[in-house]
């Protein structure tokens, strides 16, 4: 079973639109939406939820007011600013609590205990393109990285159960904890980039991240015609770094029109230029997925100074 994760560094470059298109092109895949903070893939794939599982992230401290002597030791030792003093009494600020339990250690009265906290839900669903694993993180909850891991676990199980040979992961933006969870152990990351200065800057950081975790990477340029000079810069850079550029997609209103109709670009305009280009990116991806896990990828030298 292969796993492909689609990331971008910068947000809004087209990860979900492209993942949805791949979902309609894939023959035998499980879909996984790992942008658990702001999940959007379900808006196109319209999953029918089969099973829901509560997600317990980090625990939460709870102060028993009856036992608390207001000594303030918990506040002194909490490094996350989660204990708030208000006119001599102490309370927990759940947004700041990282569930470390240090306060339970230092409280001389045993007035603090750790409580399980339900931080979200993990779903296994059916879509018109196959099974899908996705999640909803509670508003303002921590541990999105852990939730991403759970979604990927769920996707793996769905793939095993249904005999699927590919997991298609829609990743989150950034380079931090949820992104790391979304890419570790995948066979290939596809970075969706755009030819803007921010796009170039963020592409560079996210390629460094992939290199850091020794995961092979390929690039797909989206909206390349917004700035052809920058597009060329990215292409040349990738060439010199030996990172394949699998295609250049034009800026096309069909992407938004398809989204408004809750369809993938392939379903909405199968014969359009965008759909055709997406198809050829997909065709280029498949052989790459085959080879990337068979042989050890040699360490690439990334010379970022060219930007």
């Amino acid at each position, binding site marked *: 079973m292969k796993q492909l994760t689609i990331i971008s560094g*910068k947000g*809004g470059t087209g990860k979900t639109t492209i993942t949805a298109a791949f979902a309609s092109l894939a023959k035998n895949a499980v879909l996984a939406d790992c942008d658990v903070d702001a999940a*959007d893939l379900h808006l196109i794939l319209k999953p029918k939820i089969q099973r829901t599982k509560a997600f317990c992230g980090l625990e939460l401290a709870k102060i028993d007011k009856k036992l608390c002597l207001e000594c303030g030791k918990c506040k002194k030792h909490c490094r996350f600013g989660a204990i708030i003093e208000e006119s001599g009494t102490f309370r927990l600020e759940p947004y700041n609590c990282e569930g470390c339990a240090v306060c339970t250690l230092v409280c001389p009265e045993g007035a603090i205990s750790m409580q399980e906290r339900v931080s979200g839900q993990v779903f296994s669903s059916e879509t018109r393109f196959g099974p899908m694993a996705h999640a909803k993180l509670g508003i*303002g909850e921590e541990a999105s990285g852990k939730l991403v891991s759970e979604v990927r676990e769920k996707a793996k199980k769905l793939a095993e159960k249904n005999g699927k040979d590919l997991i298609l992961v829609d990743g989150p933006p*950034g380079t931090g904890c949820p992104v790391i969870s979304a890419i570790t152990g995948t066979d290939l990351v596809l970075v969706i980039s755009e030819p803007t200065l921010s796009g170039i800057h963020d592409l560079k950081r996210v390629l460094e991240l992939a290199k850091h975790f020794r995961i092979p990477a390929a690039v797909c340029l989206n909206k390349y015609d917004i700035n052809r000079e920058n597009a060329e810069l990215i292409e040349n850079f990738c060439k010199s770094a030996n990172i394949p550029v699998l295609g250049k997609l034009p800026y096309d209103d069909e992407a938004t029109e398809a989204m*408004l109709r*809750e369809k993938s670009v392939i379903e909405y305009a199968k014969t359009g230029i965008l759909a055709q280009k997406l198809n050829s990116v997909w065709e280029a991806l498949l052989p790459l997925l085959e080879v990337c896990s068979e042989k050890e990828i040699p360490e690439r030298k990334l010379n970022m100074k060219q930007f």
Partner: protein
Amino acid sequence: MKIAIASGKGGTGKTTLSVNLALSLSDVQLFDCDVEEPNCSLFLNCKPELLQEVSCQVPKINLDKCSFCGQCSEFCRYNALAVLPSDVLVFPSLCHGCGGCTLLCPEGAIQEEPRRIGLLEKASVQGLEFYRGLLDIGEVLAPSLIKALLTRIEPGKTAIIDSPPGTSCPVIAAVENMDYCILVTESTPFGFHDLKLAIELIRQLKIPFGVVLNRYGLGDASVEEYCLAEGIPVLLKIPNERKIAKLYSEGLSFVEVMPEWKEKFQKMFEAIKAQVEETKRKEPLGLQEEKA
């Protein structure tokens, strides 16, 4: 006045708005809190200088003192320690730096040492003070870096905070304690869906907010209709023009090229101030005390 610019969905125009708003006002501090992918400096065309390294305290085990009792690894909620019969493995990248293991160790065998997670940088450019955080590649503690960055806010100045996307811990670190939050979105199904998530978060944090519609004309009217129905002020509409997209791609702030926009941003700032005043007036006294 502290104003955060947030969005839910990525790529809707947080950085564009932050930079252009900051350049339109005086006596401003601009903070780039998208520490995973900070982009403000590209539009200010500056190279920020190092201010400080930010680190997290991680355990260092003195094996001569260690009795391998295993209490530290049992306590650690982040699986950052593993105790073997004659060795202790520390996984620094998993450690949140809570200090629990050091407190707990009965042999006094654990000391803490700083481990770098990122940098704070500063530049003075085009009449504004610019600060940014830069998370090291492979690091996860974005909220700690953001909190360190925001200690640089000076009271009395206008602070503009460019927040990361999403609705989880890094966003909270950036927007909590702000006087106002601007939510930037585009009126597409993805933009609308993520805007509603962001609104839910900002309401929970009890911060007054308004919406800026970017790429206005793209998609449909659903965001505008929603804001009208919910009584949420639409502060500004930035049209979906290729010219603006091109300027963005080149890393140019559009108030410089189109100075008429400066006035629009200033007007928006005045409207925000008025809304903040209004909210304070409406808020019953008791609630204010609770917040303080």
